[in-house]
């Protein structure tokens, strides 16, 4: 049986995997990065549009350009890279974590490591998940698959396209398809507001006169062999009003209805999942319920911008290093609790002695909101926010000075987040 031994094994070579690898390898630890694709960079490589890196590099890069900044550095470092290699199983023992990896080139083998970073990204939700009625013809794609077909393989999936869901990938694809000469006949969104970034609504739809149907749903897919039409119905008070349904004839449907962190591997190792994010529950170190297994990037929670992915992964890398050095073993942490109008807050624990950084999403669209953070009855921080919406993540930092060292049943008081 073939085995390879490392200090740290990283599953996934996207933005998250690469940034954490660089951070960890800079301390001299032995690192391996495993990815099932033939290249480094993950999903970034198919995002050939602009808009990456505004926060991290203060310039506008394409996905591949953004990835390249990390790829070239990785290649300079002493980091082992296993491509075309799928992690198929994971097991967590006392001190050793083990991953089964399968590839044509190296066969099947086990990677043993002291720590693992989960950086597997996410997958797209699809028509089946939504239970959309109608037939099941060819011509139904997730937006990301269409993006991959078009941008990497050079194949146009269809000529008359309707996009379901106003997520960013769908918006970007609306513009991209228009450029190739396909007709994009509309974007249908169930919510009363778009779920993608505002800049994408403007630059990808409005600039090309593509109609955006808000508060509308697809009530039927028609077509026996290939998609022939969809029936679109407006929602009134949340209920489809069939008397106002209309048909759009098309040959292709793209679904851009959200992403789901890819955690089948995580679950196979018995690691606890947060039902709100679909990612693992993590403590203040970004460590999952399995000692020594960390998570960052889209596998932890779906990010809107890659800059935040890289940032989170760098933090995660630092935590892995501290863990290997045994520095964070007996730290006290308190619970983070999620209150009004918030979908989730990551991480799920906080520390008293160091700075904490939290990422979160709102459940509602709201102008002039206030983020309230409390320890018991005491307000730790009150942060005014100009505008919040579920599509855009926001972050907050809390310094240790701001926190009281108050305990309840031997644990620090929970830190309560809410949006008012």
């Amino acid at each position, binding site marked *: 049986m073939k085995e390879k031994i490392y200090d740290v094994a990283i599953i996934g070579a996207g933005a998250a995997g690469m940034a954490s690898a660089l951070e960890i390898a800079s301390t001299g630890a032995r690192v391996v990065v495993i990815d099932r694709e033939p290249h480094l960079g993950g999903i970034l490589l198919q995002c050939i549009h602009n808009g990456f890196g505004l926060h991290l590099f203060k310039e506008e890069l394409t996905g591949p350009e953004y990835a390249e900044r990390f790829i070239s550095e990785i290649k300079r470092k002493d980091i082992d890279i296993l491509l075309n290699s799928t992690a198929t199983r994971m097991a967590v023992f006392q001190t050793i974590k083990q991953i089964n990896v399968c590839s044509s080139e190296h066969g099947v083998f086990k990677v043993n490591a002291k720590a693992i970073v989960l950086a597997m990204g996410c997958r797209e939700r699809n028509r089946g998940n939504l*239970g959309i*009625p109608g*037939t099941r013809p*060819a011509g139904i794609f997730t937006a990301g*698959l269409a993006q*991959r077909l078009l941008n990497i393989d050079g194949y146009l999936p269809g000529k008359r396209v309707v996009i379901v869901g106003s997520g960013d990938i769908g918006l970007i694809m609306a513009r991209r398809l228009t450029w190739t000469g396909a007709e994009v006949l509309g974007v249908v969104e169930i919510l009363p507001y778009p779920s993608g970034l505002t800049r994408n609504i403007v630059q990808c739809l409005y600039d090309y006169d593509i109609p955006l149907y808000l508060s509308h749903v697809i009530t039927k897919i028609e077509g026996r062999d290939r998609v022939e039409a969809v029936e679109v119905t407006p929602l009134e008070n949340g209920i489809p009003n069939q008397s106002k349904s209309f048909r759009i004839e098309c040959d292709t449907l793209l679904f851009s209805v959200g992403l789901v962190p890819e955690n089948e591997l995580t679950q196979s190792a018995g690691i606890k999942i947060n039902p709100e994010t679909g990612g693992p529950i993590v403590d203040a170190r970004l460590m999952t319920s399995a000692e020594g297994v960390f998570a960052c990037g889209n596998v932890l929670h779906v990010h809107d911008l890659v800059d935040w992915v890289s940032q989170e992964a760098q933090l995660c890398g630092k935590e892995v290093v501290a863990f290997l050095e045994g520095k964070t073993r007996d730290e006290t942490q308190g619970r983070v609790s999620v209150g009004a109008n918030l979908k989730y807050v990551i991480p799920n624990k906080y520390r008293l002695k160091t700075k904490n950084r939290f990422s979160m999403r709102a459940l509602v669209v709201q102008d002039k909101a206030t983020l309230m953070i409390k320890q018991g009855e005491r307000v730790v921080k009150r942060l005014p926010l100009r505008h919040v919406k579920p599509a855009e993540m926001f972050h907050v930092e809390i310094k240790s000075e701001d926190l009281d060292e108050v305990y309840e049943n031997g644990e620090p008081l929970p830190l309560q987040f809410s949006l008012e």
Partner: protein
Amino acid sequence: MNIKEKIYDVAVIGAGCCGASIVRKLSAYDLSVVLLEKCVDIGFGVSKANSGIIHAGFHHPVTSLKARLEIRGNLMFDQLHYELNFPFKRIGIIVAAFSIEEMKTVEHLYAQGIANGVPRLEVCSRERILSLEPQLNPDVVGGLFAPTGGIVEPYRYVFALVESAEKNGVEVKKNFTVWRGVRKEDYWMIESKEGEFVKAKYVVNSAGLYADEVSKAFNAEEFKIIPRKGEEFLLQRNARGLPSHVIFPVPGKHTKGVLVIPTVEGTLMVGPTAEEIEDKEDLSTTYQNLEKVFVQATYMVPKISRREIITSFAGLRPTLPSNDFYIEPSKKQPNFIQVAGIQSPGLTASPAIGEYVKDILKNCGLKLIEKTDYDPYLPKPVKVRELSFEELERLIESDPRYGNIVCRCETVSEAEIIEAIRKGHTTLDGIKFYTRAGMGLCQGAFCSYRILKIIAREVGIPIEKITKRGGDSWIIYKRLQDIDLNQ
């Protein structure tokens, strides 16, 4: 002899579970047999879209043909499974009763089952049924337990039957839509819409939903097949509430009701509905039926969650007004055997239908001489997902393509995809049904472009020519380099 001049002993029309069972049965004899199918692939009719249950045989009175063949068919599955290695498990069937009245029906089903000869049937108390199936709603008052009920992957079953038949000399013609049969001196001249001809001494009409049209095309009996639609919803592996038996409600007058079905592959299915419709091609699903199915399913197994749906589908049961199978030689035309109205439990009954039709053919004068070299066995197909570390290690050493995981959700390797193509499954759906690639959580978002490339390479066709399931179900419109942007 010129191929065109060849006269087959038997032509079987329709490669569903019935046609497949019939040709496999016939392949044990010294006969020339051809299976004619209108679709690009076999098993693409009703036989791919059903509940996959091997019924125990207590639902129908033994006076009906379907009950007799159902019971016989059920008994034949162990042997078939042993020979052909398709996914099959006898996990048992539970009928859950929620009132004293329903318990009365359970007693009736028990008596009927015993009369039909169903082995090891049990009437259960509340305690017994909950200990058998802890996922049941605790409001259950009792029920019936039939340990001989089972589940099967229906398309794999059809593939295996046909593969075995081919191994023993049966020919298969796909894309052959029978539309006319002309009686010549002592044989039938069968014409396809695609312009091909086949001659055969005996013809079996097992064309499923279109058995009425095929019968007409041969100037045989006139009857009308009425499609009865059933919608089903599939939930992910290890779904919440996953029971370890097939759960039935106490049946209504006409249908067996909405069931909760653990599939052989570890996913969970709920359905089907039952609704008579007109259009034989209407495989659409509706929101109303999704609602209905989940209300009924969660009443029996409360933990089931709609959030875990990965896909839905519909199938049409080919029914006749008699509500029974119609399997007999035509009274109007010689050497023409009708196998029609094969509604549920057609899948269960199919092995027995194969045998039954063989006997009918014999009675009609077909000479049956057993082959000396008949080989009933098929090797177990390799599935990377099921292998141990060491087995996989050896396999990849012999063929590295087993190490290339193409479908991440179901862990299907490139070598398995190639094997499916080699066996004649060259559409995305064909490969999906053969290997499970694309059947998992992401529904092909990850693997379909990889599979397209493998098909294009192995079959030697451009990607634009590949279809989802034949006909006009193209997947890729054009290559970017072929697009004229100035147009």
